[in-house]
């Protein structure tokens, strides 16, 4: 941890000519910019000089704008092969992909600060396994920690069943690690009590995309630039995936792209779009579906739909009803529609339904969403109105969490239909997809055992187990938590924390022994008594899952400390090379899992290094959007390792799925669902595999399903949740300068100076009504945070709605409070407050309802309510040292 007392440096060492140069990509956001690490020994005073012939950049200092400048935050000192080395880490000025010309965000730009250096605030990295004895986490050996964990784990799964062993893990922190973890959890433990960092259940994030047939990450970054009209829903990419905006969208906007931003917060990207002829759809929380359908209605009424595209690429009645050869009504899409709420007979049937819903008139949608109705007509015109010569605008649609975590099923259904209507998806510059949050590093080493989940959706299908309600109900006897805060990342965080407390530290079975067997017996007794044993695997000690609730801590190695692979938001695969030593005994997650699995008696974990894991995982990527199996085949053919072969592509990487031509060269895939792409008429050769989604859509027929998106499936929750009396809508999201929980940023003095505490953005009118000024310390609180007592309970279809759950007494209301520093600002819409989504000590999710979307199983994290109370003044109100209360929309 660091304080905000940041003292800037006024000089920086430069890498000498003979510095080692290692390529990597940024560890943080979905974009994954290419970076170069320059490394040279500290010993020998061997720094480079400011003349081009005396530094590794071949540049004279001062360098030109956009040149190889090194900010002091881009330098660090690390251990390499046991000796101290300088590292300078700057965006790769030579890269031809992603961050072309070496652009970077603040997050990645300062990634050198991530590296472990005991002289910096990274000094509290976990460097040895820990075990809680007499209430204190004490260093133990790997063997000791693993022996205890393995014995207790085997006991729990044998005595209480596989579902008693919960695995809550990151989904993205490198292919080698996710493969090892999911192989262990799903194939070997075979537990349904498994999910990822951002969802209570292992379910699709975008059910509407899934059903329509759209891959989340089909587009290429150039498509976002080449669209003539771009609708961006629920994100400002400038704030959250910077280089996607600055390198791709900004040139598009400068070239005349009409950019429509649907978002209640007017940050720099929104302001830039508006200033350059774009449009801001400043919707109230949770009303996106109404606005999207109102736009679609205007298009339908005017006959501006892309009729030719629809005729060719949208399922008619026959297509809608066909299955995968397993009989009708047995595809994931169709079982969600068992009760007939979504399915249509094609475009005309959908349009008829759309026009019959009074809530979708532009006037009503604008009123509920709190926007100027003219904006709906303008958006419809920009997206679909053909020009005088009949040419259609090339329209694309981008969505992200502000949108799909407000009304998960409804919003993603509605936007998919709008995309289909305007011909987005399937052609260059005419695409639909997610912008993305974290990078894409998941490869599954096992299949999720859905049939072992006791939870069901209406009808007969089982739903992935909701690990939060399962744990709240006391069924998780051992929780293995990997690289996530779990608690603060989920809704109703404070109720979750209370239950964790009861199940762990308040259980009478606490370790008070030095004897291994006695420790094991105590933890077994904890599990048998209805309590819970917690293993936490992470790079830092996390509060509270690690430092308060965990019995065993496994220290993990991370970015730069082992060689890994991962893909970005356009499926671009790169090698992230190791360039320094992990702290102490910290080990990569794949290694930790392998040792634990071996001690538990599982086979198939005899990996020597991360490349072994990557090579084993390759065949499990076949057919996926980041299929890299053919890179392995090329490596075998050339006598290289997979890491070495992919490494040859440097920071440019290669876009998945990857294919091998007959001459052995590798070819990437620019976009998925590319209807303009011609594949070999004779089919794939060798081990190549052509998936349908290369040239068609991900549906039962390869054509899109256009589906209804009824407001009524969500409106009861929205109305119940809507602010009452002096409540305000309360939402949260990322801030440009902080990544995820701030696990690195809390250890960067400059970022802590900028954001020492969580903040609460509030509109000047709302602030004035409450006597609040910027810098005041506020309590945001609620006495009606709803949460499900048990999994969604019901027999008939309408039991499953929020109203049905209330009727069946399955909803508990509780209190929550989070403090934050007031930021009175014009850039937030009136009636809404906005916080950073994952400050671990001030978690905004505490105020969000722990009610899963009853159709998809995801949380709607972005729609809560809160009252505000001033409880004093923060130190930042009158000091000039840290924070800034200036608005984020200055252009």
């Amino acid at each position, binding site marked *: 941890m660091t304080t905000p007392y940041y003292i800037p440096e006024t*000089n*920086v060492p430069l890498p000498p000519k003979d510095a080692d140069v290692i390529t990597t990509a940024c560890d943080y956001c979905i974009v994954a910019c290419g970076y170069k690490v320059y490394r040279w020994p500290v010993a020998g005073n061997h720094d480079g000089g400011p003349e081009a012939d005396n530094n590794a950049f071949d540049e004279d200092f*001062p360098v030109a*704008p956009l040149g190889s400048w090194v900010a002091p935050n881009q330098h660090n000192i690390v251990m390499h092969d046991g000796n101290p080395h300088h590292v300078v880490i700057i965006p790769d000025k030579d890269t031809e992909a992603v961050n072309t010309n070496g652009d970077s965000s603040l997050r990645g730009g300062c990634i050198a600060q991530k590296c472990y250096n005991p002289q910096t605030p990274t000094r509290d990295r976990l460097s040895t396994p820990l075990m809680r004895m007499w209430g204190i986490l004490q260093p133990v050996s790997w063997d000791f920690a693993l022996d205890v964990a393995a014995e207790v784990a085997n006991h729990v799964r044998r005595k209480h069943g596989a579902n008693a062993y919960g695995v809550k893990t990151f989904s993205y922190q490198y292919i080698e690690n996710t493969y090892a973890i999911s192989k262990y959890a799903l194939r070997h433990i075979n537990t349904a009590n498994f999910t990822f960092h951002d969802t209570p259940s292992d379910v699709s994030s975008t059910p509407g995309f899934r059903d329509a047939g759209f891959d989340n990450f089909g587009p290429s970054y150039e498509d976002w630039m080449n669209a003539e009209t771009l609708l961006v829903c629920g994100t400002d990419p400038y704030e959250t995936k910077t280089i996607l905006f*600055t390198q791709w969208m900004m040139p598009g906007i400068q070239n005349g792209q009409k950019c429509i931003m649907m978002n209640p917060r007017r940050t720099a990207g929104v302001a830039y779009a508006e200033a350059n002829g774009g449009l801001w759809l400043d919707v109230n929380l949770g009303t996106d579906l109404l606005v999207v359908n109102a736009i679609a209605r205007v298009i339908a009424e005017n006959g501006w739909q892309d009729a030719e595209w629809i005729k060719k690429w949208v399922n008619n009645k026959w297509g809608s009803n066909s299955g995968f050869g397993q009989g009708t009504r047995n595809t994931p899409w169709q079982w969600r529609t068992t009760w007939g709420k979504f399915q249509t007979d094609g475009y005309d049937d959908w349009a008829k339904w759309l026009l019959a819903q009074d809530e979708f008139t532009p006037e009503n949608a604008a009123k509920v969403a709190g926007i100027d109705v003219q904006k709906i007509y303008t958006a419809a015109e920009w997206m679909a109105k053909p020009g005088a010569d009949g040419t259609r605008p090339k329209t694309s649609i981008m969505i992200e969490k502000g949108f799909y975590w407000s009304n998960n099923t409804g919003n993603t259904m509605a936007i998919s239909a709008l995309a289909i209507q305007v011909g987005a998806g399937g052609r260059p510059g005419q695409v639909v997809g997610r912008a993305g949050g974290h990078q894409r590093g998941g490869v599954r080493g096992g299949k999720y055992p859905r049939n072992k989940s006791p939870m069901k959706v209406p009808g007969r299908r089982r739903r992935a187990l909701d690990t939060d309600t399962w744990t709240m109900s006391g069924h998780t006897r051992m929780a293995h938590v990997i690289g996530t805060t779990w608690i603060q990342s989920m809704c109703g965080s404070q109720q979750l924390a209370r239950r964790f407390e009861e199940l762990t530290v308040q259980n009478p079975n606490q370790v008070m022994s030095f004897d291994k067997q006695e420790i094991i017996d105590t933890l077994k007794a904890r599990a048998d008594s209805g309590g819970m044993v917690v293993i936490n695997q992470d790079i830092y000690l996390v509060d509270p899952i690690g430092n308060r609730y965990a019995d065993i801590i496994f220290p993990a190695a991370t970015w730069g400390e082992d060689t890994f692979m991962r893909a970005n938001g356009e499926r671009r695969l790169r090698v992230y090379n190791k360039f320094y030593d992990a702290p102490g005994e910290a080990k990569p997650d794949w290694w930790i899992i392998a040792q634990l699995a071996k001690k538990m008696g599982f086979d198939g974990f005899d990996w020597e290094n991360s490349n072994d894991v990557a090579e084993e995982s390759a065949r499990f990527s076949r057919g996926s959007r980041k299929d890299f199996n053919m890179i392995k085949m090329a490596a075998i053919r050339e006598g290289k390792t997979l890491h070495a072969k992919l490494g040859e592509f440097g920071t440019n990487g290669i876009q998945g799925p990857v294919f091998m031509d007959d001459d052995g060269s590798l070819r990437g895939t620019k976009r998925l669902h590319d209807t303009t792409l011609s594949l070999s008429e004779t089919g794939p050769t060798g081990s190549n595999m052509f998936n349908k989604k290369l040239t068609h859509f991900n549906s039962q027929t390869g054509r899109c399903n256009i589906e209804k998106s009824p407001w009524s499936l969500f409106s009861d929750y929205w109305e119940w949740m809507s602010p009452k009396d002096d409540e305000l809508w309360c939402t949260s999201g990322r801030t440009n300068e902080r990544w995820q929980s701030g696990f690195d940023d809390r250890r960067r003095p400059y970022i802590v100076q900028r954001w020492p505490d969580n903040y609460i953005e509030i509109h000047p009118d709302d602030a004035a009504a409450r006597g609040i000024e910027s810098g005041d310390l506020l309590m945001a609180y609620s006495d009606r945070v709803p949460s499900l007592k048990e999994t969604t309970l019901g027999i008939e279809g309408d039991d499953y709605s929020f109203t049905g759950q209330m009727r069946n007494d399955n909803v508990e209301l509780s209190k929550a409070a989070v403090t934050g520093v007031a930021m009175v600002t014009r850039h937030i819409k009136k009636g809404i407050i906005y916080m950073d989504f994952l400050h671990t000590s001030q978690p905004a999710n505490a105020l969000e309802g722990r009610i899963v979307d009853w159709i998809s199983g995801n949380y709607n994290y972005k729609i809560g309510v809160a009252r505000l109370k001033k409880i004093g003044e923060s130190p930042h109100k009158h000091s000039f040292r840290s924070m*800034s209360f200036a608005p984020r929309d200055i252009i």
Partner: protein
Amino acid sequence: MTHEINSSDTASRGPGTKCGLSRRKFLLTSGTATATVMVSMNHAGADSHMPATVATYPRKKIATLSSLQTDVPVEFDYPDEGEYSSSVLVKLGTEAGGGLGPDKDVVAFNHFCTHQGGDLSGSYKGETKSLGACPLHLSTYDLTRHGILISGQAYQSLPQVLLELDGDDIYAVGIFGLIFGRHDNLQG
């Protein structure tokens, strides 16, 4: 390597220290009058064995207090006339960190974005007391708070020029933070 002589623990001992406030103390107290001297030692190339060079921030008169109008920026060069020396002096009309004068509202900053070197001249906005948005990637800076990043991609605050008041004369006497493009503020 360049060593800061008058850091807080050596402020009273460092050669050439002109006053009691160090860079560290300046930031911690938002002090208004200070001077800083840097002593830079061998920063030459790998193979050279030059003796230590001593570089010192010049004391340069840049304006008079009485001539400043609120929200009207004045440009000047500092610490030299070389590349990226262009800086801006402005009377904000509101108290600011490091602010000079009776109202503690006169501040000065280097003019180049500490992200990728975009030129911020002409981007001062009185309404928000800010510089930017940078024409390259939209970074903005809060001049009331030591040039901290408001929104954007810069790797650090905008370098703040230390000011000193002598009668009505305003002197530039040092800089906090590395100027874009340079590897050392005083060596280019």
